[in-house]
């Protein structure tokens, strides 16, 4: 991600240190991950220690310090989905993709993440792929859905 894009985002938030999280959220949203250079630039312009930026980039789950796959799979493991069998869905997806939550496969095809409630409890268990919600999931249905993604 080039420096100008980062600078523009920082300037939009008036270079305020208190907007650190908002700035990083925008960079993450545009770039899908936070390269080290971005963290260093933000630390520099906002005049905050790099350790603080680093702590925030790793403390909050919204940020990724490694590139994400082409398709992001989110499995809801909120209590309502858990009670309806989300663990079995997660296990099956792990087997199918070969990765665990927080990881990306070697082909950079899928990134897997668990989320703690998408608020679609009526559809539980829920699996979201690239923002599209798939409800009433069962282990047997996962392969069918995932094979549609290149």
């Amino acid at each position, binding site marked *: 991600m080039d420096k100008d894009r980062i600078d523009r985002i920082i300037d939009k938030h008036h270079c*305020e*240190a*208190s*907007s*650190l*999280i*908002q700035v*990083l*959220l925008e960079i993450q949203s545009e770039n899908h991950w936070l390269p080290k250079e971005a963290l260093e630039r933000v630390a520099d312009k906002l005049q*905050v220690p790099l350790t*603080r930026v680093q*702590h*925030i980039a790793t*403390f*909050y*789950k*919204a*940020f990724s310090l490694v590139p994400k796959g082409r398709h992001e799979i989110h499995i809801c*493991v*909120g*209590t*309502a*989905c*858990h*009670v*309806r*069998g989300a663990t*079995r869905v997660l*296990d*099956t997806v792990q*087997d199918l993709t070969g990765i665990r939550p927080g990881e990306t496969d070697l082909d950079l095809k899928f990134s897997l993440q668990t*989320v*703690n*409630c*998408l*608020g*679609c*409890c*009526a*559809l*539980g268990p*829920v699996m979201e792929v690239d923002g599209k*919600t798939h*409800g009433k999931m*069962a*282990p*047997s249905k996962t*392969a069918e859905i995932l094979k549609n993604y290149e």
Partner: protein
Amino acid sequence: MAQINTPAELEEFRKGILSKRDPDKPCVTLCSGSACNASGSTDVAAALFEEIEKQGLGAAVDIRRTGCHGFCERGPIIVIHPEEICYFNIEPKDVSEIISETIKGHKVVEHLLYTDPATNEKIVHESEIPFYKYQERIVFGSNSKIDPKSIDDYLAIGGYSALAKALTGMSAEQVLQEVKKANLRGRGGGGFPAGTKWEGSRNAGGEIKYVIVNADEGDPGAYMDRSVLEGNPHSVLEGLTIGAYAVGAHEGYIYVRQEYPLAVENVNMAIRKAEEYGFLGKNILGSGFDFIVKVHQGAGAFVCGESTALMTALEGRAGEPRPKYVRSNVVGLWGRPSVLNNVETWANVPLIINNGADWFTKLGTESSKGTKIFSLVGKITNTGLVEVPMGTPLRDIIFKIGGGIPGGKKFKAVQTGGPSGGCIPEELLDLPVGFDELTRAGSMMGSGGMIVMDEDTCMPDVARYFLDFLTDESCGKCVPCREGMRQMLKILTDITQGRGKEGDIELLEQLAETAQEAALCALGKSSPNPFLSTLKYFRDEYEAHVKEKRCPALSCKELINYYIDPSKCNACTTCARKCPAEAIIGGKNLIHMIDQEKCTKCGTCFEACPPKFRAVTKISGVPVPPPIPEEARTIVRESKQK
């Protein structure tokens, strides 16, 4: 749009809006909250607009995309006004029938109506459907009437009249006293009296004060704040502004979790519109009161729902809570007096100002006034958002409104209060819902999440689940929480995976005490609650796991085996075909067998076996019966013998 500068101008403007709206004009409202969007309401909306256009009804019919209606199990939902005809589970293909039959033909479409499961009768009107009938939707009810993106819709139902009354007809002190008199207690978890919190800030010194909306809603299974913020953002803004006036704050923050993009979008739009109309900014409605609001997004940390951690996050830091020895309403954001309240708490404020504290206190119990919105989820027939007066028995919420447990299963427990709460068992179902009542039973109200569990839910696993959640979400600063929960999770995982041993439960109890007494914040202090409450009411399950290596609920993967009962198997081959691990040995007319070495316990065969056979069973605590000999596996069909 010229700004509205006085209460009189506001009323004029409101009259103007209403005069242009014909209450008898057909209006099709479509629920367009995040959950219904996930169910396809965006496609339904597109179909609606297309059909109306096609039939040339553009001028004759209004379409209104509203926020969440609450009956999420049956979404997308369409309600046709003025008749209040309610249609459920709408798909794009139903739209043309609705338009021709109901809008043009004035007839109901039977197959889209709600069927009462008890009487099998069809019910036409929303207010007669049991799910809605037994609720008291003073806060949530407006959702189905307005398009959240339209400030005029909000004005049409009386919006911002409370603001005008407070700012120009009452003193700040009077506003505060009214909220105090109403005994409005925080709807986010603490249940702390809002009026007292406001008073603390009002009396604290200094010119700069803040009011904050906590829209971080991290409890898994709870999404009422999202639905209020998405569906009626102006009600929250109005309440916030009134609160700011009472406290003497001129700057407000709305902290929304970033996992709620539609709520972020709608609240930002509402702020822009409110500024345009003059309900935010300088000299609001000519009162001389200035107030601005900023939106901050969360970044994926449950702990930021804790008030001091939220303020730390607003300051651009990692959300580590601070000790509450000096309360944050005195020393809060940037060290200034800060009033933080939950979305639902703020949304109640305009109602209290407009209708009075006396009206509010008529609802509810002695110590818990007003209503509460609950998210009724899990093993329940009518999943959705439910608003009832405080004091309503849990049994009514779960059975009368919720429709009971699906699949003919037996109720086991209802978990309230999120990860800080506990489980309420069957024997306590007549408990009236209220802050103190739930706390006395070993749980808490929390934000209002109600996860219903049935006979298939393993309670030690529920405790393990919450501890897993909390160890991930803990900020990690203090030892009792970080290290204490680390060890508690290990022990509970061992218990659910068959490695539990004597002394485990006692050690868990000691770790629980350490966290409750010495942790830094409410997350840590309440982290043992799910374990302690499940131990209190379901101790037998813990003992079965530890002593017999048996899971009574037949849920813990490592403690169960799937086994095909040879006397019931009909060799229909369904399970063998569906098994993702190819672990089922069988064929035509051959009784099927599961190869336990290959079985991944995914449960697909269990779901797949036809109900008339029910041959696939789960066993626990006993060894798997040895396979029957090869010769005995052939099924001889009677018809073939003849």
